[in-house]
């Protein structure tokens, strides 16, 4: 993965190749690789192996680096005591629904704002982007009050997955990302489709969406990880034990359960997002910087 000359950074390529520079560079590289592995993977190692230790071993001083008698009891007990299968299923269900709602409604809206440009479109876009300035914590109380008694229709959404899905559609960052991507699709293509007699829906489906796969992937991955990581909102709108998400469920059990079991449950809860990350890390990292650097 060595970068070739041409992109020069703070320290020049030549300086790194020379005698002293080379020694410093390799020492630094080794230190960084070792240090970063310890700092970022170390705690995860500690977490996974800690939950393999027995209750007496975890209280031992000094702590053991490797469990003396590794046992999976904590994991098995956590799985049954916390009903993790149900919690994981709930979270997965909310995540998939969030992806579908965001993909359908946000893509349609961004397409309208980018290509159809109806009257007042810019005002609507401005009002959407303005919500980026408002911190989530400020809105939490009025949002909760709205969800327990929706205006006009007077429906209570507590314990309904729509309480998670619908507010997530109001995601200005998605609209911004998608609209900017659609803006880069040449107008000629749209005109050509129009000449061939394609209506707006047909154009969106057959031309825009196939070209937008990368950005749709980024939006979907972000939606899944957001739902998986979110805590306060699902804690408030999913109060029953049957509808909880995995993070909320673990927290709810954390006071009456042994700490090894809670950590074991935390490990299990983290596995899906870690797998998603390892598979899609390129998309995730490029999506993260795409939205911020040029903005």
């Amino acid at each position, binding site marked *: 993965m060595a970068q070739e000359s041409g992109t020069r950074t703070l320290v020049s390529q030549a300086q790194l190749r020379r005698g002293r520079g080379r020694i410093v560079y390799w020492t630094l*590289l080794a230190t960084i690789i070792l240090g970063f592995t310890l700092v970022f993977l170390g705690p995860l190692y500690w977490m996974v192996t800690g939950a393999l230790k027995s209750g007496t071993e975890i209280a031992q001083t000094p702590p053991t680096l490797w469990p003396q008698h590794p046992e999976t009891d904590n994991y098995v007990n956590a799985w049954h005591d916390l009903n993790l299968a149900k919690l994981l299923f709930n979270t997965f269900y909310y995540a998939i629904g969030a992806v579908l709602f965001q993909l359908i409604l946000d893509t349609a809206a961004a*397409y309208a704002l980018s290509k159809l440009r109806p009257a007042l479109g810019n005002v609507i876009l401005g009002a959407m982007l303005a919500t980026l300035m408002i911190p989530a914590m400020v809105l939490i109380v009025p949002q909760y009050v709205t969800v327990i008694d929706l205006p006009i229709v007077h429906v209570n959404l507590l314990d309904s997955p729509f309480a998670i899905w619908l507010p997530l559609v109001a995601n200005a960052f998605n609209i911004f990302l998608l609209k900017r991507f659609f803006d880069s699709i040449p107008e000629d293509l749209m005109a050509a489709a129009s000449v061939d007699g394609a209506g707006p829906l047909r154009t969106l489906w057959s031309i825009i969406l196939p070209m937008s796969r990368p950005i749709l992937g980024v939006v979907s991955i972000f939606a899944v990880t957001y739902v998986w990581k979110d805590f306060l909102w699902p804690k408030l709108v999913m109060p029953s034990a049957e509808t909880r998400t995995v993070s909320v469920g673990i927290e709810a059990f954390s006071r009456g359960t042994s700490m090894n079991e*809670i950590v074991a449950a935390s490990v299990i809860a983290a596995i899906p997002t870690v797998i998603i990350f390892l598979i899609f890390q390129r998309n995730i990292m490029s999506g993260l910087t795409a939205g911020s650097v040029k903005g």
Partner: protein
Amino acid sequence: MAIITAPGTTEKLGRSEPAIRNNARRNRKIRDNVTGHAFLIGAVLCFALFSWYPMIRGIVMSFQRTKRGVTTWVGWDNYTRIVADPSFWPAWKNTFYFTVLALILGYAVPFFVAILLNELRHAKGYLRILVYLPVMLPPASALFLFKFYAYDPSDAGLFNAILKSLHLPTSQWMQSADATMPAMVIASTWMNMGGAVLIYLASLQNIPGELYEAAELDGAGLWRRIWNVTIPQTRLILALLAMMQIVATMQLFIEPLILANGAGTEDSATTVAYLIYQHGFFQNDLNGAAALGVIMLVVLAAFSAVYVRLTTKQD
């Protein structure tokens, strides 16, 4: 958009070419408008219900009081009650303390990590994955790890074991009022710094190499190059992330909830966000919580105003 077709022209039997085209264009314009809004309606309804309306409702609620289903206007009562809460000032003190600590640790560290990573020619992909990995963990999972294994106040805890092997004094961590905030900043920085590192890395890669070349020819050493090239070139991103960091730290909630069971010892962990939660969902005081939300919004707006002043002045 003015429609230029004169009225009546279309009614004529022998319609002229431009008239037909204009008419078609007008029809298309109307049709596009209707379909355009049809495509927008779903998202607009969600924004209206869950963003725009709650914004107004929050302000309205902060001046009302609902008791047994009856809502009355109470003026500034909610505000005076929330300010009189004995946890109000500690919460702001803790939140600002956290913000300052997080700006030192969570803001400067990712920048230097990014500079370091940008200089490396090997293992870049691996190191980037490592830095971002904690961001992908559910915060609750990561915080239970810190709470039970790292911040264990006995010598069996990870941090105390490390401190002890280095012959440094051990800490009571979350049991001690002084260590509570730094401990929360460490956990929060570990969990969140990956995003900032990647954003800095991307902006560092946009710096033209000639600038460093020229600086070096002028005899600028390493630190001078960082100070006179790297920092000015990434100024806008640095300012933007500082603002984002302040907004994020103001909303600190899950860290005190899990690490310190909410308030911590002697209110040492109570944050403004936690106080909103406490009032709204434990003390059955949604109106007071809404008032505190409005106060938080005003404080953040003041920060944003300063930010806009600072960033636009130079251009």
